[in-house]
């Protein structure tokens, strides 16, 4: 264990370690846009091959890449857990995960079993590299914990990621090798999605929000009862829902499914309420985007409720768009806009260079316009979920949104390079 776990500058991973994740992530969004643009009928159901490709480009490409990059940076700061050799862990897992995502998306979109298996295998290998380093860092972290629930909930989220990945590998084996399972395929897909959305994405977003929302937006703290019980309750409910679903018990499965929706809604509502009590009177673009993401999450939960109670044909696609693009996409973009300029500034300052302030590295105007493009894309994606003829337009907008995000992040990094002279 280091003499000053997580606190020292030398425990901060080199800038390149998280940055490689942050800069490649938007490119997967651009590729997802290409799929929408060129694959006909992609949004007609959640089961079309291009829709499966699209979902994985977004989830394993954009969301996972940013989340892992952010974890590299956040684990030392909030949990005192510094990864061994962060640059090498980042380099190896990043490359393997990126290759795995492309192979998997190709395999799912073109119905190519070998590519599905290769993609899932690479994704699992990349995650193993990353998770092994993260678990090692958490085991070495000091036991003296503060009042914050964040370190505990980050561990839960990593467990949720492991379950999601294991279910994904199982699905890949079913699709590519004809592995026979005692449960129907759609059921296993639902479990995979449920664990991915709530067990990994939701837990990670909440664990981060417990500290980020009150501290950066200067709001009151989340209610202690919520932060103490929310994540463990979600995990227990996910386990109960999985058991009931696998056991074929329809009523308990519906009841636990409803409980999961209610838990997710509780988090989103608590966040929106806190944000409305922010003392920062000038909400910046990132704050607004995070807020929009919470409303999209609530909309997505209502749509999911609809899918449980009715058979309305387009509702699953609407729910997917709201949860993935609206909620996770928006919240992640908002956080990237705080993380990348700050890390650029931090690494300049640590190198003893007089760094331009964050708004000089990345001004508000281009961020605001890109986030407006995000909102417009969300609207057209929702329209395209109902009127599939709009899918190419949505694809075009998706490419603009993520190309622009990439350009803005690159702008901050380049401004930092210029300051180095």
């Amino acid at each position, binding site marked *: 264990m280091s*003499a*000053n*776990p*997580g*606190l*020292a*500058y030398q425990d901060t991973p080199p800038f390149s370690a998280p940055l490689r994740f942050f800069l490649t992530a938007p490119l997967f969004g651009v590729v997802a846009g290409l799929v929408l643009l060129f694959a006909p009928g992609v949004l007609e159901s959640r089961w079309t091959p291009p829709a499966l490709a699209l979902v994985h480009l977004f989830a394993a490409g954009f969301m996972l890449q940013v989340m892992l990059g952010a974890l590299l940076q956040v684990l030392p*700061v*909030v*949990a*005192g857990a510094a990864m061994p050799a962060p640059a090498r862990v980042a380099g190896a897992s990043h490359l393997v995960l990126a290759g795995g995502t492309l192979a998997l998306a190709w395999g799912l979109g073109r119905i190519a079993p070998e590519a599905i298996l290769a993609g899932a295998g690479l994704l699992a290998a990349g995650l193993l590299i990353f998770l092994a380093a993260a678990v090692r860092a958490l085991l070495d972290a*000091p036991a*003296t*914990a*503060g*009042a*914050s629930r*964040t*370190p505990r909930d980050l561990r839960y989220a990593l467990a949720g990621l492991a379950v999601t990945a294991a279910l994904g590998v199982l699905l890949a084996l079913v699709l590519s090798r004809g592995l026979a399972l005692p449960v129907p395929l759609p059921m296993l897909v639902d479990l995979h999605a449920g664990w991915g959305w709530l067990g990994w994405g939701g837990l990670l977003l909440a664990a981060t929000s417990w*500290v980020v929302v009150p*501290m*950066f937006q*200067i709001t009151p703290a989340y209610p202690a009862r919520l932060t103490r019980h929310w994540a463990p309750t979600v995990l227990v409910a996910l386990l109960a829902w999985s058991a009931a679903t696998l056991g074929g018990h329809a009523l308990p499965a519906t009841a636990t499914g409803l409980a999961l929706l209610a838990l997710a809604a509780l988090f989103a509502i608590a966040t929106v309420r806190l944000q409305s009590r922010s*003392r*920062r*009177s*000038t909400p*910046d673009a990132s704050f607004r985007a995070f807020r929009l993401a919470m409303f999209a999450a609530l909309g997505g939960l209502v749509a999911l409720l609809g899918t449980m109670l009715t058979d309305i044909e387009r509702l699953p696609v609407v729910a997917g768009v709201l949860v993935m693009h609206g909620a996770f996409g928006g919240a992640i973009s908002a956080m990237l806009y*705080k993380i990348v300029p*700050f890390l650029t*500034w*931090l690494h300049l*300052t640590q190198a003893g260079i007089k760094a*331009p*302030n*964050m*708004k*000089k590295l990345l001004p508000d105007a281009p961020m605001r316009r890109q986030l407006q493009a995000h909102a417009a894309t969300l609207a057209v994606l929702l329209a395209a979920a109902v009127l599939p003829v709009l899918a190419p337009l949505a694809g075009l907008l998706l490419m603009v949104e993520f190309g622009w995000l990439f350009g803005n992040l690159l702008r901050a990094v380049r401004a930092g390079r210029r300051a180095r002279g």
Partner: protein
Amino acid sequence: MSTIAELMTHDHRECDHLFASAETHAAKGEWEAAAQAMDAFSRALQAHFDAEEQQLFPRFEAVTGMTGGPTQVMRGEHADMRETLAAMQDALVRRDAADFAGEADTLMVMLQQHNMKEENILYPMCDARLADERTELAAGLARRLGARAEA
């Protein structure tokens, strides 16, 4: 206030509120009020840094023998933040709203990631390692923070 962590975390939030007030006034172009709020924020923040550097950290260093450890890192970050604070004050004097907002945003993120480390790692370490003198030390810190902020 029973623990050092609770006391110092509470003071972090007090500083945040003063910061928000300065930022709000500056954004509205209320420069007189912004200057007053900025003055209160600056005094509170300096008092907090001073209390740590002169009272809390020396005790931690004496008991643990870690002089080149976490406290040195925190002192380094205090120095960085004092510079950004000065840049904010300079922008305020020039009434340059864009520059002020940029420096404020930078200080905000710097301050919060620093606070996260203190609240999650260093303060709990202080409470654990300074258990014998905790009550007395916390009372001394509280007196100092209260007195300096009002001075």
